[in-house]
């Protein structure tokens, strides 16, 4: 894993999400897409670090700190372990993975946010965001892989 490139990519996507996409009613969650990307293209340790880092970035531009670190970290790690058993290689499967992970992380974020007595995201918005991300995500895997110098055709299992 090239961590400097990783940091630049996360920073760029975080700024993009908070700046350019902030005013859109329904928008893809680029950090969610990156979460799934790193979970299925890195080994377990790297995937865990990447998941929590992406969660931290999502919390930095979110309403409150904590919920997304936990949910992104948890589901990113689970997806990385799952990827040892089931290879998520084709784009439809990647889209499905993004959708499922997006919806589950959203549910957990809502639960944790509710515990902090903060406003939660409506479920319709959650569904639309997950769907949008799942449609866009597989296409963003290619430039992400190029930037991270990851060969997408070769899958190694650790």
């Amino acid at each position, binding site marked *: 894993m090239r961590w400097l490139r990783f940091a630049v990519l996360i*920073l760029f996507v*975080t*700024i*993009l999400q*908070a*700046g*350019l*996409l*902030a*005013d*859109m009613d329904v928008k893809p969650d680029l950090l969610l897409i990156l979460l799934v990307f790193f979970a299925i293209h890195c*080994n*377990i*340790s790297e995937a*865990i*670090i990447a998941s*929590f880092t992406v*969660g931290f970035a999502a*919390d*930095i*531009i979110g309403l*409150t*700190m*904590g*919920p997304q*670190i*936990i949910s992104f*970290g*948890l589901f990113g*790690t689970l997806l990385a372990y799952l990827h040892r058993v089931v290879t998520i290689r084709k784009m439809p499967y990647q889209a499905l993975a993004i959708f499922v992970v997006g919806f589950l992380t959203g549910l957990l974020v809502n639960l*944790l946010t509710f515990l*902090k007595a903060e406003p939660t995201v409506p479920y319709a918005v959650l569904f639309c965001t997950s769907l949008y991300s799942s449609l866009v995500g597989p296409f963003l895997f290619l430039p992400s892989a190029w930037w991270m110098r990851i060969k997408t055709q070769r899958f190694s299992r*650790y």
Partner: protein
Amino acid sequence: MARKQTRVSGRMLFTWFMLAGFICLFAPQNITDKFQFTFARIFRWPLRLGRNISLFAHTQQPLTDVVSRRQYNQLQNRADNLIETLIEGRRRYKKLYGLYNSYVWDDVEFVLAGVITASTAGPSCELVINCGQDSGLAKGQFVLADNSIIGTVSDVFSHGARVKLITSSTSNIPVKVGKLRAVMKGNGDSSAKIELAKHKVKVGDSVYAVRRPGLLDSAMKVGTVAKCQSSDQHPLLWDITVEPACDIEKISDVAVIIMNPKK
């Protein structure tokens, strides 16, 4: 061996990161806010740039519904004239009957009529007014006084009409009091009644004539509840006595509601 170390390292990493996540979650808001504010402060320029691009993209809407300056001026003048006419019309209504402030009367014409004779007691409580068919009056139209309904037009002549008051014993007007809907009958004196109501209403509640398409576009007050007592014949039901909302004996002018007048 190396593979085993990686697994252990992964679990430890996960545990430590989860712990960090929960610390962030339960840390005081003013401390965690500092992270967010610091990020926003450091990267304010790219964030602002992105926001500006987004706003610019949202505001660049194609102009499709445009008119020429001349046409615009014509329309503006027409709108100004209409506003002035509206203000003048409202001023007249305000001066006469205070009916100007209710938007439901947009397609309504009020015919102002003077009372020639009034009979407010006995079985036929009625008024005779000095406007008739020539002014557009027709049988069944509602008659107002002091912003409340006092009766309906019962007979129309060429230059006059007879108004059956709500207190007349032959008067039957559908009304509502709160959630109660019933027919109000006149008592033949200075009051009316609602017989055998299903539930009790409070003394002082307003009684409204219900909307009747073609005659009355919106519910309008006819009186107030003066008494509500259980019925002698059916103890589970209620008899309601209604007082008219205005003093009918002192009326000198009335307004007849003409819905959708011919222009």
